């Protein structure tokens, strides 16, 4: 974990209201990004916003020996912090802190990873898909499936998609017409599935029901307002079914989807 004044290497719009931001991120032994882990960015002026903004890594490429690597995020413009970020240009300085949080685990040998992404969950799931494709190539699991849901084609990112990616749109303007849950209902994973998801709450809850029905493991990357990002403030509470809370920033953001109380989450 480190706080860096790093440099924007590139920024480009990848879908309506979505940007991919790439920045220098020196490799450091044992503390590398990973799918599901995140970085917090100071996005704005000196006093406002007062809180850093968290974003999941969407990619990371280690540099050559001793050299700096490069990390990326895919972000949606939601408010003033992300609006500011959309105005960044290559060479601009970027105050980033990370990597933070617990990332995704690896599926059991022979399992079929089923990745589900929607909205701002696209970045981390693309990263996970790329990682699991390497695992699959090495024979550690079956080839991953990546199902991504969007309102319409305009929101589907213009990013190289991995093999096995399926796009679902509510209006059928691209790929499958319907929600990701609809598509999954008719999908046969062939091997025992292992679910991974990141996206809007209703989607997360739908995958939870699916995983439960199939008695499959489910790793869910949750979203919650954060202040410290390091476990110090108890602000990012996510309610769990056993009662009480876990902290999204250090206990998660990747949590066992079966323990999260999706009803109480908002």
């Amino acid at each position, binding site marked *: *974990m*480190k*706080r860096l004044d790093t440099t924007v290497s590139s920024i480009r719009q990848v879908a309506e209201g979505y940007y991919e931001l790439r920045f220098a991120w020196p490799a450091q032994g044992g503390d590398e990004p990973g799918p599901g882990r995140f970085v917090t960015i*100071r996005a704005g002026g*000196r*006093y*406002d*916003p*007062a*809180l*850093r903004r968290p974003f999941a890594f969407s990619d990371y490429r280690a540099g050559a020996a001793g050299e700096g690597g490069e990390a990326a995020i895919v972000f949606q413009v939601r408010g003033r912090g992300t609006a500011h970020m959309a105005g960044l240009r290559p060479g601009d300085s970027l105050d980033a*802190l990370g990597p933070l949080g617990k990332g995704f685990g690896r599926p059991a040998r022979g399992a079929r990873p089923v990745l589900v992404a929607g909205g701002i969950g696209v970045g981390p799931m693309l990263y996970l898909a790329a990682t699991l494709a390497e695992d699959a190539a090495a024979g550690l699991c079956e080839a991953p499936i990546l199902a991504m849901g969007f309102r319409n084609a305009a929101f589907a990112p213009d990013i190289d998609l991995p093999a096995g990616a399926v796009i679902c749109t509510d209006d059928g303007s691209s790929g499958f017409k319907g929600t990701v849950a609809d598509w999954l209902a008719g999908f046969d994973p062939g091997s025992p599935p292992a679910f991974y998801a990141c996206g809007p709450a209703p989607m997360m809850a739908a995958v939870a029901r699916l995983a439960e029905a199939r008695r499959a493991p489910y790793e869910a990357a949750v979203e*919650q*307002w*954060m*202040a*410290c*990002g*390091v*476990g*110090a*403030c*108890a*602000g*990012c*509470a*996510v*309610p769990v079914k056993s*009662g*009480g*809370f876990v902290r999204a920033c*250090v206990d998660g953001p990747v949590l066992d989807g079966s323990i999260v109380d999706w009803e*109480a*989450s*908002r």
Partner: protein
Amino acid sequence: MIGSMDMGVRIGDLVMPNPVGVASGTFGYGQEYEPLVDADALGALYTKAVTPEPRRGNPAPRLVDTPAGMLNSIGLANPGLDAFIAEKLPGLRARRCSVVVNVAGKTEDDYLRVLERLEAEDGIDGYEINVSCPNVAHGGLAFGTDPAQVERLTRRLADARTRGGARRPIIVKLSPNVTDICVVAKAAEAGGADAVSCINTLVGMVIDVKAKRTTLAMGTGGLSGPAIRPVGVACVYKVSRAVSIPVIGLGGICDADDALQYLLAGAVAVQLGTAVFSRPEAPLEALEGIRAFMEKEGLSSVADIGALLL
């Protein structure tokens, strides 16, 4: 000049190594920010509130961002007195900075229980009495607004200290959500407080217009961050002229200039809270800035800064 500069700050029998602390609730118990912040170099580490029993805290969401600030309704979530002693205190004991435990509870007896039990433990340098948390229904805020109760609670806590030798200072943390903060400060002083700290958060609310409900599950929360800094500086200015015990200033401090505003207003030490979230390096940078200011002004003691105000 540097050689003869005394960065220490006296609070009752305690001398903190320097005037910059990290505020309760924003720095956990000191390990969370490793390796980003060298907590040993701080003047003081104020822990998250400790209550007799474990508390889960309030329902989520507990945070929301506001213009130049934030609201929180953590609700004193903490592992409770036993777990604090077993799990958190060992790490704190090893600290070179002063360790001040923030004490909270539902009843006066709750506060007493925490203090009495901690008196038996080494590695604690002082108590900050949280009578000003706006986020618990039966708790802090009611206390913090009633001078008679503040005086009585302070006296009971001051008297309950049983350790021999140097006494651990009682620092009463004041709420800005009152008509006259000086009345409450004087009550704390009358009750035997060694110092007061101010300010805790202001009561605030954000409504999510799309969802048509309050963003925080609890409705209201406590406002902190740069937005409230002018309120904190005004409180410290007034309180430091109303009481003769030391005043510790906080509320929206982001850098050395902000800290110096508080020190010029009459505080002898400061705390950074919300700013640590945004820039973990802020407290130690502020300390460096205060040092540079003292050097430029030819001051040999932090306590002399307040006298510079014209």
